């Protein structure tokens, strides 16, 4: 969702703020107090809270269905397999992929990127080849490529960003060339909030025949994602940032590519037949799912996707955009505060520094007020270096946040300033 699209839908259909109170009821953790104060949870980019249906689904699975998938002929295994596979279908629909076999379960976005680096990367990237990433990548979209480059004698190229935290597309155009073998780029930056122009990035890469991996860890919970419209070749995300359990996520890969790729790990489930002379690999997606998977996690993620999609994504986007605008306005009234990440196309993230006050102290003081934010480098050290700060404080939003949460944040920051005055 772009800013303009969001503001348009705001005008047409004001976000149903009265619904938010009801939505908050679905999240038991939000009723807690922390240090005697009501919890204000503004660390959604780190992980999101879980609605009761997700928690209940996990309990129900372990209480009535627990068994291994794809292995048993008995009733429980059949039920578990059915639910596990229907979670895959839910992911396929969420991302608008064309076939369930294009959805591979992983532990999360990190494992998804490593899967592609290991399998596609090792197969296609050689000495002198280049991989393009950007200056705003999470460490999980830097380190796997560095490892691969080191192993193969390939080179990592980095698209620079401007002072607002936007990609310099002209530099990207210049980096692309016959040596480029892969582009791997974040959809929505976790430390800046920037939404990258994925369609354009993909189109430019494809004109050189170069495939594109998109890190959607932050995008999936906040933006409509249509992998076919984006045109990307791989898309990864984590369930725990989408109101689902930890330890589960998925990779979308175009079937044609996945088919031609070697397995990621060897083991049970990923084979058709094994003899000591020869092993036949299983078909997609099982070729990439060795061993007993996180069955409960997958089914829990399925429940989270059902919950999330029922809320209607365009309403969520418009509402979150309103919150972001409100938060930006409120924070801008603090003179010594500087927002890091001011892209025109932006969602959900308020990253900032306050002159003379370390982010860590901000975090501790806010915590004493029951306000949970993240402080540090957010696994994006190169972004911190780019903006010349050791760390930032980051408030990250979800649809269950309210203007009252932002007000609490601003009041908490007043307390910070008071202590340091």
């Amino acid at each position: 969702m772009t800013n303009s699209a969001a503001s348009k839908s705001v005008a047409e259909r004001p976000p149903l703020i009265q619904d938010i109170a009801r939505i908050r009821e679905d999240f038991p953790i939000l009723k807690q107090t922390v240090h005697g104060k009501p919890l204000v949870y503004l660390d959604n980019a780190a992980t999101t809270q879980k609605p009761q249906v997700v928690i209940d689904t996990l309990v129900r699975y372990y209480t009535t269905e627990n068994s291994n998938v794809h292995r048993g002929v008995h009733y429980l295994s059949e039920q578990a397999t059915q639910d596990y596979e229907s979670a895959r279908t839910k992911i396929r629909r969420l991302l608008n992929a064309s076939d369930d076999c294009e959805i591979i379960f992983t532990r999360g976005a990190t494992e998804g990127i490593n899967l592609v680096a290991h399998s596609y990367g090792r197969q296609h990237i050689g000495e002198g080849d280049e991989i393009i990433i950007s200056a705003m990548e999470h460490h999980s979209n830097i380190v796997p490529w560095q490892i691969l480059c080191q192993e193969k004698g390939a080179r990592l190229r980095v698209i620079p960003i401007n002072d607002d935290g936007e990609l310099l597309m002209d530099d990207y155009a210049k980096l692309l060339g016959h040596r480029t073998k892969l582009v791997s780029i974040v959809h929505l930056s976790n430390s800046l909030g920037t939404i990258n122009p994925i369609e354009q990035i993909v189109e430019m890469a494809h004109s050189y025949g170069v495939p594109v991996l998109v890190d959607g860890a932050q995008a999936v919970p906040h933006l409509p994602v249509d992998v076919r419209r984006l045109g990307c070749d791989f898309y990864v995300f984590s369930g725990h940032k989408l109101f689902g359990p930890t330890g589960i996520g998925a990779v979308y890969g175009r079937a044609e590519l996945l088919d031609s790729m070697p397995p990621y790990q060897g083991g049970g489930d990923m084979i058709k037949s094994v003899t000591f002379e020869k092993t036949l690999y299983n078909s997609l997606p099982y070729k990439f799912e060795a061993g007993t998977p996180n069955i409960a996690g997958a089914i829990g993620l399925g429940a989270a996707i059902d919950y999330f999609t029922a809320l209607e994504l365009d309403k969520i986007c418009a509402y979150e955009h309103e919150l972001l605008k409100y938060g930006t306005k409120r924070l801008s009234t603090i003179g010594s505060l500087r927002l890091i990440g001011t892209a025109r196309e932006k969602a959900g993230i308020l990253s900032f520094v306050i002159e003379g006050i370390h982010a860590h102290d901000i975090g501790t003081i806010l915590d004493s007020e029951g306000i949970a934010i993240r402080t540090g480098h957010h696994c994006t050290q190169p972004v911190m270096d780019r903006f010349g700060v050791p760390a930032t404080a980051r408030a990250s939003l979800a649809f269950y946040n309210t203007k009252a949460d932002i007000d609490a944040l601003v009041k908490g920051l007043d307390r910070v300033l008071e202590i340091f005055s």
Partner: protein
Amino acid sequence: MSQLEELYQEIVLEHYSRPRNFKKLEGANRSAQGYNPFCGDKITVYLKIEDGVIADVGFQGSGCVISKATASLMTESVKGKRQEEAVEIFHSFHNMLTRPPGSDFDNERLGDLEILAGVSEFPIRVKCAVLCWHTLRAALEQKHQTVSTE
């Protein structure tokens, strides 16, 4: 005084905004760098050692209140001490920060460092307070690599 007020008491904030011995030490014969990747704190500790005594000490770097104020207080406490004594002060300081909540500690060697006792109520911040000490120890042992609290 609330735990937070104790942590950010005036004297601590004063050491943060006007740290003592905050300089690159001329004539230093030992130095080491410390880095806390968790919060991005960086510190360099400089020592002038004469006959096993810390004749002078300085530090530079950036960090949060706890890390900077501790470094400032540390330099005051170890100046003029024998190397072994400095290490013993570190042990006492470490014990104070990692003691069970509400329990007593041995303050014999601590002097002004005692004002940081409240850090023990914020376990996640203990790292910030020990970074400068690990760096000091690396300098004493003349380790040249960067030390890290991770």
